[in-house]
């Protein structure tokens, strides 16, 4: 018990004193996850809109499939990316394994189902009358789609935040394809898992507190948006 107390005090000291290592790991975690969220959104928002607006055979099947992958285990995505980018893998030539780049690629894949699915359900939540109103006022098919997406903007924002939350809190993928290399691919979650097994409870606790704080901020933001 005393050890935990001591650890907590030290952890707070590390945070308050802006310890270089703590700051560096936090910064990397944020930048990797923000990048992967934004890049994934770049593909998923248009693709989700297309799936919503175009009626095609097996559309419902595709949506069910996307929803199935909401909670795909991070280690499974990690395994897939590892196999793809390992020396002998089809993309091994690129030499990206154990770099931040491949971590971003992995996270993009990991959160794509959440982004796609929540975009689609956000768009489906828009009153049908909105599309009718837009068309009746002379909007083309594309302009109508933009109007509907604008109406769903808060739902889409919520999707982005949820996706970011999943990206920054996952550990399996980051450790498998990132390798937890100090000063290069070490992020909050991988550092916590390593330092704890090494017995450095203080650093782990400090990083844990930061991770929880980030989760708290994300949830506050999400609540604010969902109240609109």
């Amino acid at each position: 018990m005393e050890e935990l107390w001591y650890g907590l005090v030290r952890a707070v000291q590390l945070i308050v004193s802006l310890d270089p290592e703590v700051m560096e790991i936090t910064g990397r975690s944020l930048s990797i996850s923000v990048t992967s969220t934004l890049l994934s959104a770049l593909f998923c928002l248009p693709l989700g809109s297309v799936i919503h607006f175009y009626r095609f055979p097996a559309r419902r099947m595709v949506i069910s499939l996307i929803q199935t992958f909401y909670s795909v285990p991070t280690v499974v995505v990690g395994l897939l990316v590892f196999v793809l980018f390992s020396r002998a893998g089809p993309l091994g030539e690129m030499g990206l394994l154990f770099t931040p780049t491949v971590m971003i690629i992995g996270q993009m894949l990991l959160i794509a189902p959440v982004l796609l699915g929540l975009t689609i359900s956000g768009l489906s939540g828009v009153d049908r009358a909105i599309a009718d109103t837009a068309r009746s006022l002379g909007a083309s098919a594309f302009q109508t789609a933009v109007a509907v997406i604008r109406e769903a903007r808060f739902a889409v924002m919520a999707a982005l935040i949820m996706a970011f939350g999943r990206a920054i809190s996952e550990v399996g993928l980051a450790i498998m394809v990132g390798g937890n290399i100090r000063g290069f691919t070490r992020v909050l979650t991988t550092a916590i898992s390593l330092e704890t097994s090494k017995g450095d409870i203080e650093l782990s606790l400090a990083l844990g507190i930061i991770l929880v704080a980030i989760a708290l901020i994300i949830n506050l933001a999400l609540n604010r948006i969902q109240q609109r």
Partner: protein
Amino acid sequence: MAFIEIVNLGRTVGGRDILKSINLKVERGEVFALIGPTGAGKTTLLRLIDLLDAPTSGKILFDGADTATSTQERLKVRRRMAFVLQKPVVFNATVYENIACGLKWRGLGGHELQRKVDNLLDMVGLAEYRRRNARTLSGGEAQRVAIARAIAVAPEVLLLDEPTANLDPVSASRVQELIARAGDGKTTIIMSTHDMAQGQRLAGRIGVLVGGELLQVGSSRDIFTLPRSREVAEFVGVENILNGVVVMNEERVVTVDVGGKMVEAISDYGKGEAVLTCVRPEDITLSLARVSSSARNSFAGEIVRVVAVGPLARVEIDCGFALVSLVTKRSAEEMGLAKGRQVYATFKATGVHVIKKDA
């Protein structure tokens, strides 16, 4: 060639015929009202005219050209129209942006756009709400935004679906004023309503739509005084519709046998024809004693029920057949009209409208 010509238009959804072979011509600059009970197909017809949906059968000619063309061509035609849906829907954006959207979609921008939108905001009396989110407006205000948004694009055809159905009386009259102003003689207005009085007040011509069929089209006066069928008569408020048979026709003065009582009317139908005789309740005069007057029809009867309807009293009488008369409440009080009282119901032969009974 009429501006909008609808030929044998039908729409079937899920095996149910929503519209059955509609034929209608609307001229440029006309204000036309579709009246009919809810579920009659008014919204469906308006949506077809606005090219939002495609008909199952038949066609719509717009300005002489068939509208069953490519998506691009249909968009071009749709951009000459504007449609205000029954439920006022506003975009989750400012009032200004709501009114500007139709113009933006047509490629307008800059000062021209701002000037037009500002004018409209003044016109609908929402200038002070310019920057407010339209979602925060009341139903009446939202409907005014919806109408301003439609008028903004200077449509050649303005379609309005039950524009006042969900509004309180004050908001409704403001909206009606806006519609009346939009009917400037250049804009063609096609509106639907289940409020007969509104149709009468705003429209030049009226079409009665019941059960997906356009039963009668004509001037509002004709529709209200000369309904062509029982459905139309019932819908336009003719409460006395009596089954009878013509027994005599002398120089267009017909005598109709209604359950043994003889009713005189003006009509072309000959002897033996099964007819419906329609008398509007406000055309029936009640008296306590038989009066001698030029009115050809006078029947003794007993009051069955008296119900107050605003300033009027609705008196139901049994005189061998049921009759309903509307008198002022004051008359009813002064005459002591009450259940069981013997009265005479009198109406003129010219106040009776005779419809041929459908086979």
